[in-house]
């Protein structure tokens, strides 16, 4: 997946997702970025929660990976794009995995479908034995 709208990225950073405490660090980093660019409390909470779901997936199912943060400025709109990348087993059936209640792990299967509901844009790409990449964007309201 080519990084879309590369021109509009004004700031980027990467958080490793190799341990359980990295999941907490990812949440804290997203919260701090969202607050810095003036997200409302509700928007911040939604994005942090979506990030927490996807960071846990990266760590639990993907065997670890990273979260890339991008601050996008597009004309008069500003948003945060988060990309979760792992090199784990991949997802055999993305449609099935997106369904609420589907789980192969210890969660309750709200992770993918639920996090999609919390953001404005959601892209997922996965290849068996290669890995999974999920990108979410939330624009400031």
């Amino acid at each position, binding site marked *: 997946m080519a990084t879309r709208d590369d021109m509009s990225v004004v700031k980027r950073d990467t958080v490793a997702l190799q341990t*359980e*405490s990295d*999941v*907490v660090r990812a*949440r*804290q980093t997203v*919260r701090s970025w969202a607050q810095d660019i003036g997200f409302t*409390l*509700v928007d*911040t*909470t*939604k994005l*942090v*929660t979506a990030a*927490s*779901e996807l960071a*846990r997936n990266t760590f639990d199912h993907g065997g670890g990976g990273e979260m890339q943060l991008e601050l996008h400025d597009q004309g008069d709109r500003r948003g945060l794009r988060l990309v979760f990348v792992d090199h784990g087993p991949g997802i055999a059936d993305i449609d099935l995995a997106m369904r*609420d209640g589907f789980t192969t792990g*210890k*969660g*309750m299967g*709200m*992770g993918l*479908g*639920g*996090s999609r*509901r*919390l953001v404005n844009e959601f892209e997922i790409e996965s290849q068996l034995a290669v890995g999974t990449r999920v990108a979410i964007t939330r624009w400031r309201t």
Partner: protein
Amino acid sequence: MTLERIPILRMGRVLLVSIQIEMSDHVALALQDDLTARIADQGAAGVLIDISALTMVDSFIGRTIANIAKMASIMNAPTVLVGMQPAVAITVVELGVPLAGVRTALDVDRGMKLLESLCAEREASGNA
């Protein structure tokens, strides 16, 4: 692995938990184990969980809280969850975390009153 744990306070016959630290999955599971052990040890009549300091409840944390409430209630200790921030409530509903079976109250005061009435009901039915 951190050894962070959420303290469980005893107030009369009720156990009081106020989550004031960032909930990693590990911390959430440790709370589940500690709390069920304390309910059994002390024959607690009820549990009050204050989440007013929690800025985020994702599916794992939500599920753990719902499980704690279920476990406590089958151990005959009704559980009341108090203090959920409005932004967290909005997010939890959109995410789809099933907290519907968990009794809630706005704050600790109201939660204690609810818990007292639940405990009284339980005694009246001879179930205490």
